[in-house]
C-alpha cells in the first residue's frame, strides 16, 4: 500500500516533465502505464499537457532597437519631463538599455561564452558577466564622482589609489622630460585593478545577479545625472580626468563597444548607436584626439612635439605651428571638425587645414575602440597624407583595457 502511494507520488512528480516531453523513454512509458489506471493523475496530465501546448508558439517579433527612442520621444512630446535627462546622459541611457536587452535573452550556455575585447594594447578575454564587472567597475568612477557608493571593494593592504600612480615622480625631475610610453600596467592600473577586484568578488554570483547589479548602478547614474544637468563634476579615471558630461558619453561609447563584443561572442545582432548619440561620441573622440596624437608621437620618440600645454611654445618637426586637419564624418552622424595636429592649442585661426579626410562615423568610433585596422579603413583623403595617417593611427590610442 505504502509502496503504491510512493509510486503514485513519484509518477505524479513527473507529470510536469512528461508534459514538456522531457522524460527519458523508459520513465515516460512507465508513467503512461500509470495514467491508464489513475484518473487523478490522468486529469492533471491532461491539464498540464494542454498548458504545455500553448508553449509551442511562433517566435515573437524582435524588438527593433530604435523603438525605445521612438517611444520615449513620443511620450515626452505629449508630456514634457519635469526632470529631464541632460542631452549628454542620453547616449548612456540608450546604450545601457540596449546591452541589457541583449543580456536578457542570453541562455545559461551563452553566459559561458568568452568575448574578445580588443584595445590598442591587446585583447582581453572575458565572459559576459565579467564584461559587466568591468563596465560596473569603471562606471564606478562616475558613481564616486556623483557621491554614489563605489561598487568595487577596496584594494587589499591599502594599495595606493590609482590616481597616485598617474604621474611617476621621476617624470617631474628633469627640465626636459623624455617622452616615453608609460607602462600600460601603470597607466591603466586603476582600471584593470578595479576590474579584477570586482570580477573576483562577483565570480560566485549567478550571471543574472551580476547583470542586476550593473543595471541598478546604470539607473542610479542616469538618475543622478538628471540632478546635475551642468555636468561639470570632474571624474577621475586615474589616467585622465573628464567632466561628467564627457565621462557619460565616454561610458556610453565603451558600453556600446563591449556590448558589441558580447553580441559577437554569442552571435547576436547588435545595433549601432542612434545617429545623434553617435555624433556625441564622435565629437568626444575628436576632442580627445590631440592628446592621443601626443601619445602617438611620444611612443615614436618624437621629442619635439608634445601635446601637453607646457610645450605650447615648441616648434614641431616641420617648423610650422598650429596645423589643422579637416575631418568630415559622413553617414548618419554626419558633421565636420577641425582637428589641431600640434597640441590642444588650435593655433592661429584662419590657416588652411593641411589635409581633409572623410570617414564614416561608426567606423571612426570603432577605430577609436581599436576594433578596426587604421591601414585598412576606407578613408577619403585629400592633402597631407602623413598627417592623415597620423590621425588614423592616433585614434586607436583612445582605447583602453
Amino acid at each position, binding site marked *: 500500500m505504502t509502496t503504491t502511494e510512493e509510486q503514485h507520488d513519484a509518477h505524479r512528480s513527473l507529470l510536469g*516533465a512528461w508534459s*514538456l516531453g522531457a522524460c527519458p523513454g523508459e520513465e515516460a512509458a512507465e508513467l503512461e502505464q500509470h495514467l491508464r489506471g489513475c484518473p487523478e493523475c490522468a486529469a492533471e496530465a491532461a491539464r*498540464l499537457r494542454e498548458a*504545455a501546448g500553448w508553449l509551442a508558439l511562433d517566435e515573437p517579433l524582435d524588438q*527593433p532597437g530604435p523603438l525605445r527612442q521612438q517611444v520615449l520621444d*513620443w*511620450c515626452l512630446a505629449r508630456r514634457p519631463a*519635469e526632470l529631464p535627462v541632460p542631452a549628454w546622459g542620453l547616449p548612456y541611457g540608450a546604450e545601457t538599455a540596449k546591452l541589457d536587452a541583449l543580456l536578457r535573452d542570453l541562455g545559461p550556455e551563452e553566459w559561458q561564452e568568452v568575448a574578445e575585447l580588443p584595445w590598442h594594447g591587446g585583447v582581453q578575454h572575458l565572459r559576459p558577466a565579467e564584461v559587466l564587472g568591468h563596465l560596473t567597475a569603471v562606471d564606478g568612477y562616475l558613481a564616486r564622482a556623483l557621491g554614489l557608493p563605489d561598487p568595487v571593494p577596496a584594494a587589499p593592504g591599502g594599495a595606493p589609489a590609482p590616481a597616485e600612480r598617474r604621474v611617476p615622480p621621476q617624470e617631474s625631475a628633469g627640465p626636459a622630460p623624455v617622452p616615453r610610453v608609460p607602462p600600460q600596467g601603470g597607466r591603466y592600473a586603476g582600471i584593470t585593478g578595479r576590474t579584477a577586484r570586482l570580477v573576483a568578488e562577483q565570480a560566485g554570483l549567478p550571471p543574472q545577479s551580476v547583470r542586476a547589479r550593473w543595471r541598478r548602478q546604470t539607473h542610479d547614474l542616469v538618475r543622478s545625472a*538628471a540632478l546635475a544637468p551642468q555636468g561639470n563634476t570632474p571624474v577621475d579615471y586615474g589616467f585622465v580626468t573628464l567632466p561628467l558630461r564627457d565621462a557619460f558619453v565616454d561610458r556610453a561609447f565603451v558600453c556600446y563597444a563591449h556590448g558589441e563584443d558580447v553580441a559577437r561572442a554569442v552571435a547576436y545582432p547588435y545595433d549601432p548607436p542612434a545617429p545623434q548619440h553617435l555624433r556625441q561620441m564622435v565629437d568626444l573622440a575628436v576632442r580627445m584626439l590631440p592628446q592621443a596624437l601626443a601619445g602617438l608621437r611620444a611612443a615614436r620618440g618624437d621629442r619635439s612635439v608634445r601635446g601637453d600645454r607646457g610645450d605650447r611654445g615648441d616648434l614641431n618637426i616641420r617648423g610650422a605651428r598650429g596645423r589643422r586637419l579637416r575631418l568630415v564624418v559622413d553617414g548618419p552622424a554626419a558633421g565636420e571638425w577641425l582637428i589641431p595636429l600640434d597640441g590642444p592649442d588650435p593655433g592661429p585661426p584662419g590657416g588652411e587645414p593641411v589635409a581633409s579626410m572623410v570617414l564614416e562615423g561608426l567606423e571612426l568610433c570603432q577605430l577609436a575602440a581599436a576594433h578596426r585596422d587604421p591601414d585598412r579603413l576606407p578613408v577619403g583623403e585629400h592633402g597631407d597624407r602623413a598627417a592623415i595617417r597620423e590621425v588614423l593611427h592616433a585614434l586607436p590610442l583612445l582605447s583602453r583595457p
Partner: protein
Amino acid sequence: MATPDGTPRWDEQLQRRLARGEETALGELYDQLAPMVHGLAGRVLADQAAAGQLTREIFAHVWEHPEEFDPARGSLRSWLGALTHRRAVDRLRARRAAEYGPAGAPDAPPGAGGANAGAAEAEIRTVATAARMQYVVDSLPQPLRETIAVTYYDGRTYRETARLLGISEQAAKQRMRLGLELLATELAAEPAEQHAEENARQDTAEPDGSEPDRSGPDTDDHGEGGT
C-alpha cells in the same frame, strides 16, 4: 508578478517618479516592461509596425496617466499586460471587421458572412490566448520560466536540465510541474465567453492554492477606457 525588481515597492516608487515627471522613470519603465508590451502586441497583431505603434501608445498612456495604476489591485506589469492585451485585441477585431465587413465584428449577428465571421472570431480568440499565454510564461517566476525554457525550447530531458541549471532532478521536476500548473490556471481563468468552446475540459478544480500572487490579465482591468 516576477519582474527582477518586481516588488510592489518598485511599482509604487516608479509610479511616484512617473507622476513627478522624471524622465529616468519613463526609461526604466520602458526597459522593464517593453519586452512584454511589445511582445504581446506583436503576437496578437503579427505586424511589426502595428506592434510598435501600440507600444508607443501604451507607454504614452502610463506616462500621461500614472495615477490610473492602482498598486492595491496588482502589479504594474499585470496592469500594462491587461491594457496591452485588450487594446491589441480591439485592433485585431477592427482589422478583421474591415476585412470581412460588418459581419466580422464580434457582436454582429451571424449574417451573410456568418461562416467567415465565425472563423475570424475563432482565430482572434486563438491568437489572443496564445499571446496572453506567452506573456504569462514571460511573467512566471524566474526559476520556473528558466527551467521550462531550457527544457522545452531546447528539447532537453529533466535530468539534463537539472545538470545544466545545477539543481536537483527533484527540483527540476517540481519546477516544471508548478510552472505548468500556473499556466493551466491562467488558461482556466480566461473569461467564459472566450473559452467556452475550446476549454470545456479545464473547468476542473483549481490546483493547490499555493501559486504566487497573480492578477489575471483579463480580470484586472482597472476600468481603463478603450482606444
